[in-house]
């Protein structure tokens, strides 16, 4: 447990930093404030709980190295989201290559939903993510950001680092494959 004095010093320092607008740029504070947010995005994009830890670690390593380049402390959250999307996309591609050579274990997405989900919701999410494994990585990321993460189309484009038209095209591409799969089912 923290001693009250140490706690007080930390609060005072944090308060001073916040006053100067730099608190959210402190790497330690950055992690404590945004780790859960980054983990949630990574979980939704990757679908595997066991991949989340490595992704969060990689994102915050990039953050530790690059946080000094951020001018606007308010933009940290969006910047972390973009980094997370980039890292997740890279991991999805690596996963696909491993799968091509038979080195990646087949994903079972039965643990994608939390304990509060109904059996129907759990089944739906498991099916959706199983189909997404066959969708190209860029299209998968765009679709997940739009329909699972619930982002606006403009934000999807910004997070993916592409134009609005490209984002729409990628989402539509994923849609088609999902439609086919669910229609056949």
């Amino acid at each position, binding site marked *: 447990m923290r001693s009250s004095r140490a706690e007080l010093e930390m609060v005072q320092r944090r308060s001073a930093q916040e006053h100067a607008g730099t608190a959210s740029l*402190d790497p330690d504070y950055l*992690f404590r404030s945004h*780790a859960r947010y980054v983990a949630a995005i990574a979980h939704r994009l990757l679908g595997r709980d066991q991949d989340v830890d490595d992704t969060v670690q990689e994102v915050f390593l990039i953050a530790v190295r690059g946080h000094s380049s951020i001018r606007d402390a308010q933009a940290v959250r969006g910047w972390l989201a973009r980094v997370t999307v980039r890292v997740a996309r890279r991991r999805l591609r690596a996963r696909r290559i491993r799968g091509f050579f038979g080195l990646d274990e087949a994903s079972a997405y039965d643990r994608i939903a939390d304990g509060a989900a109904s059996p129907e919701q759990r089944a739906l999410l498991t099916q959706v993510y199983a189909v997404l494994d066959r969708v190209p990585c860029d299209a998968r990321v765009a679709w997940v950001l739009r329909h699972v993460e619930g982002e606006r189309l403009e934000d999807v484009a910004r997070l993916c680092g592409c134009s609005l038209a490209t984002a729409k095209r990628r989402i539509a591409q994923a849609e088609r494959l999902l439609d086919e799969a669910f229609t056949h089912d």
Partner: protein
Amino acid sequence: MTDFHTRVAESREHVQPRWTCEREREIHFRVLRAAERRKPRFVRRAALLCMALVACAVLWQGSRFGSTASARLERLRPMNAPLLVLADGSAVRVKQPETRLSNLRVVPDSVSLELVTGAARFEIAPNPRRHFQVRAGTATVTVLGTVFEVALRGDELQVTVERGRVRVEHGAREHVLDAGEQLTWSVRAVPSKPPPAPALPESPAQDARRASAKPAVKTARETPAADARKSDWRELAVRKQYDAAYELLSASGFAAVGNDAGDLLLAADVARLSGHPMDATPLLQRATQLGAHDARAGLAAFTLGRVLLEDLGQPARAASAFRKAYALAPRGPLAENALRREIESLRKAGQHDAAELKLDEYRRRFPSPGR
């Protein structure tokens, strides 16, 4: 929006990772550790680039004055103006008008130069991957990250350490100087046998009279043969010939190494770097037990922890060693690393509760790690 999209939208709030405080701490710890590992890589690259720039500058200057780069670098500047500045901020300044420096050599992992006469001040940025050596007469001063002065007046060498530590070697003699210490040695002739231990005054003001006045003290155990053996393995160790040094040391027995922290640390280096980490542990334990008598005890405890953790796979004992390293110098340069390594060791030993407590302590003590 189709029925499918509506169902997905209703389910998305349930797509959450199983995020716990324990998991967050674990990842935070991994980030801190990985960030620490990556830092030296960048520092090493920057240092290499700086060295290359300095070497180019020296070559250019040498050709301009019609001499080779490594041959002469004599004083051409006003006193106290930096004669040499490395890009990492390390600087060499002359202290006397008659100061002469020569034989500057800059390679990626070492910088060396010779003080021919006079006095110079060296402000060296800590860099464990680069050796910085100053030769003065027949003595060698090896920098361990520090600010210090070297003066050579005739046969008399005087080394004063303002900040950090340096190692002074002359023939078989060797001494590590800490901040605030000064050493005066006669250095022109290399002694045929080890001379008396140098005086180590507590303050620069006391040093000069003590250094020359202190009589030689020789223990009954140190026979001439033992002296020769001792100097042999040490010379080999200093020349990084650890296998040969280990053979000599193991023949005479590690127990014969005296209770001097410098000797014990060097012998431990010989053992572990020649591939015998098991032999290093008793030496490091002895150095650790010097405790309050020697500032290097903390370094010994930290090294012991590393050997136990990395070479011998004994994380529980390693945790204890790192704990001692931290306790010996809680405000020292190794304190943060010691505490971090203790947490790592406790985790590896399966003592997760203890690791959690230590992690709390770490966060309290170092709220901004690595800064």
